[in-house]
């Protein structure tokens, strides 16, 4: 992993991984799930040296604080057990049997065939995303070559090592490699052998890759996303406001707000027992507490400079627009209450904007500009309105509406960005009589 492999090396590796496909397809899927789960569980087991190494090296490789690394590993690896993997397969394909033979569903009799080679190009620095991605391919018996994001190299590497100790033939169906993001030569070398390509990254990354993927290769693209919070009146009374603020603060703080699920704006209903300003103050207290419990990670002078510009500019804008700014000084969290939406400036650290909203039904209009990028909406205090509001949010573009407390770690079987993550990888074969 230290030296960057040459494109030629990548091409050879991709061919070798692909060559395992036929053997892998012969294996019972529950056997594969068991092996993957056994490897994944090692990252959860407090007594396992692989987990110890992960926690030892993650702070340096990811830039997250040691305490946050524990939280993120626990949150992510919870989905890497055999039980969760089987639940994922069941949710997506009906049953793991569909990977082993033809199964009847309604009037159809079908078999799900995983890719011969899924090449996965992942950008970004949220630890665990790479392992999730490689598991999705292997669990459908699809060999995979993955290039994780710069801040997420460690866990896929350790997972591959764990798998090699448990099930060497299955480990041969996995290659974890790294090349500098955007290297066309490396990407093309890998893609030439792929029948499925997945990409996680900026819109621009997706766009350039889409233009180069061969016509017969299926492209599964996860472009950049943004998530928000929506707090209803029912959550703005008595003790609930503190609990809600705690949940929202946890969602903002997780992964130092790097995740696509991380809320960046929180819409707060007016007309409750407490005001949006009260909520902003409660959120500031909760972010301060979260910063103690799960400290922020590496933060260099350049990021600090961006943060100082953002904080002071928000203060200046708040004077004219009637808002407020609360921040942790040396602790890089910031809450900005915007009485009317203010121009966004580049931010750093855990930085969240609170915007008052007349009624939750108005969220639709407020979020419309985010439409194609909107992902998770963490909700609280909507009471009986939850389903109707969720429906409206879905129509605007959201693909996940979840309690604030659950925002940070979506379940293994979620419709990632509104799609079936395994369904996107398999090809159905119908057997008609």
């Amino acid at each position, binding site marked *: 992993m230290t030296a960057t492999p040459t494109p030629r090396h990548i091409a050879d590796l991709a061919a070798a991984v692909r060559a395992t496909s036929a053997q892998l397809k012969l294996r019972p899927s529950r056997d594969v799930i068991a092996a993957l789960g056994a490897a994944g569980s090692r990252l959860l087991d407090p007594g396992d040296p692989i987990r110890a190494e992960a926690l030892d090296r993650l702070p340096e490789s990811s*830039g997250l604080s040691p305490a946050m690394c524990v939280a993120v590993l626990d949150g992510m690896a919870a989905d890497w057990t055999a039980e969760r993997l089987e639940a994922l397969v069941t949710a997506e394909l009906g049953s793991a049997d569909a990977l082993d033979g033809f199964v009847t569903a309604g009037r159809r009799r079908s078999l799900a065939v995983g890719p011969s080679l899924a090449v996965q190009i992942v*950008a*970004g*620095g*949220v630890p665990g*995303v790479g392992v999730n991605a490689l598991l999705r391919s292997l669990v459908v018996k699809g060999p995979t070559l993955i290039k994780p*994001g*710069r*801040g997420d190299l460690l866990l896929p590497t350790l997972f591959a090592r764990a798998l090699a100790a448990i099930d060497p033939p299955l480990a041969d169906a996995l290659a974890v490699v790294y090349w500098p993001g955007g290297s066309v030569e490396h990407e093309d070398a890998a893609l030439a052998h792929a029948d499925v390509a997945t990409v*996680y*990254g*900026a*819109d621009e990354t997706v766009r350039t890759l889409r233009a180069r993927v061969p016509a017969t290769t299926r492209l599964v693209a*996860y472009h*950049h*996303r*943004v*998530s928000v919070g929506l707090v209803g009146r029912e959550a703005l009374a008595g003790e609930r406001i503190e609990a809600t603020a705690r949940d929202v603060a946890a969602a903002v703080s997780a*992964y130092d*707000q*790097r*995740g*696509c*699920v*991380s809320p*960046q*704006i929180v819409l707060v209903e007016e007309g409750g027992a407490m005001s949006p300003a009260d909520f902003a103050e409660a959120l500031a207290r909760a972010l301060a507490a979260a910063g103690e419990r799960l400290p922020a990670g*590496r*933060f*260099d*002078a*350049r*990021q*600090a*400079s*961006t943060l*100082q*510009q*953002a904080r*002071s*500019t928000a*203060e*200046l*804008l708040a*004077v*004219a627009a009637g808002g407020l700014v609360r921040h942790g*000084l*040396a602790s*890089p969290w910031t809450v900005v209450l915007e009485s009317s939406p*203010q*121009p*966004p*400036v*580049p*931010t*750093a650290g855990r930085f969240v*904007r609170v915007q008052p909203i007349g009624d939750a039904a108005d969220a639709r209009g407020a979020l419309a*500009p*985010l439409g194609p*990028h909107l992902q998770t909406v963490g909700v609280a205090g909507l009471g009986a309105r939850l389903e109707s509001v969720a429906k409206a949010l879905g129509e605007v573009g959201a693909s996940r509406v979840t309690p604030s407390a659950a925002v940070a770690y979506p379940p293994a079987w979620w419709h990632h960005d509104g799609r079936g993550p395994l369904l996107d990888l398999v090809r159905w074969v119908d057997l008609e009589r």
Partner: protein
Amino acid sequence: MIRSSDESARSALPALASELERRFEAGVAAAWSERDFETLALAAFRLQFESIDAYRGFCQGRGATPATVRRWQDVPPVPATAFKHIDFVVGRERAPELTFRTSGTTLGTAARGRHLVPRASLHRHSLLPPFRAHVLAGVERMRFLSLISSPAERPDSSLSYMVGAAADAFATETHWLVDGTGGLDVVGWHTAARDAAKSSEPVLVLATSLALLHLVERLETGPASKLPKGSRVMETGGFKGSAREIGRADLHARVESTLAVPAGRIVAEYGMTELLSQLYEPVLIEGSGAAGTYVPPPWLRVRALDPMTLAELPAGAEGILAFFDLANAGSVCHVLTEDVGSVHDGRVRLSGRVRGAEPRGCSLAMDELMSLARSAS
């Protein structure tokens, strides 16, 4: 844009500005005691506090008013980014004499800032003495070859304005050798360089780092274009925001071989639209050992601040640079920049620009998102 109102400051700016112009005229070698600076700095703060609503509210929010602030260091600094959203100008009932716009950022033109300058003469008084000291360095007048667009081409560029004002004051003749989009007039260059060689009169080349690179690349494949002895280059801007970047030493070696101007005669300028004064590398005065440090004029003080707490750092420690520029009397004097560096004996050393911030993950930053929304609509 939020406009700020002005009441009592109307008459105070001309009085303060006249005093400042008189002091600036004495040049960069004039003695400025800490007390001189502080008195003028606090007078400017009072003016700006009273005149600019958003700034007043900002200062009050931090408990800083002309009654409580005793030291210039305690005047709240305004972030450079805020120039994109707020007009900081004293005396808004009169149209500003100059309007400078910041160059676009990665966000595009929607996020360009502007600096309204109510009094052009104060600006001219601040820019000429440091230019004379560090760029002319003992020569009265020179021939100017400018690879920076003329003020006529780029009326909203503070850099073009500065070069134009310096040319008016110090040039025997001025050749504007790029158009408004930065396109190089190679034929014009060769003509001007040949004329200079014939006259043996040293020339001053003014250029951004990128323009200088373009020039040497063109000259390396064409006829020789050595400049007369005593010629010099004023270089500004680095490669910020450009896809092309080469090392400074490499660029300077190529300048020496194509133009016959040695590295020790290339003076780097450091300035920004938000600050009306400039800093220079004192290489012509002190020799090439001074390369890498920037000297402010005595009416500009610079400090490195703790990146998180913004507390002042000891000499030599690296932090975020904040400038207090009395030439900004008509807007805001105390500006917190995005630049990271250290300060020693009042001089600035910039830290290498760190490219590619920490991985942001799969989330999209709000500002990027809004710029996407804007470009889509």
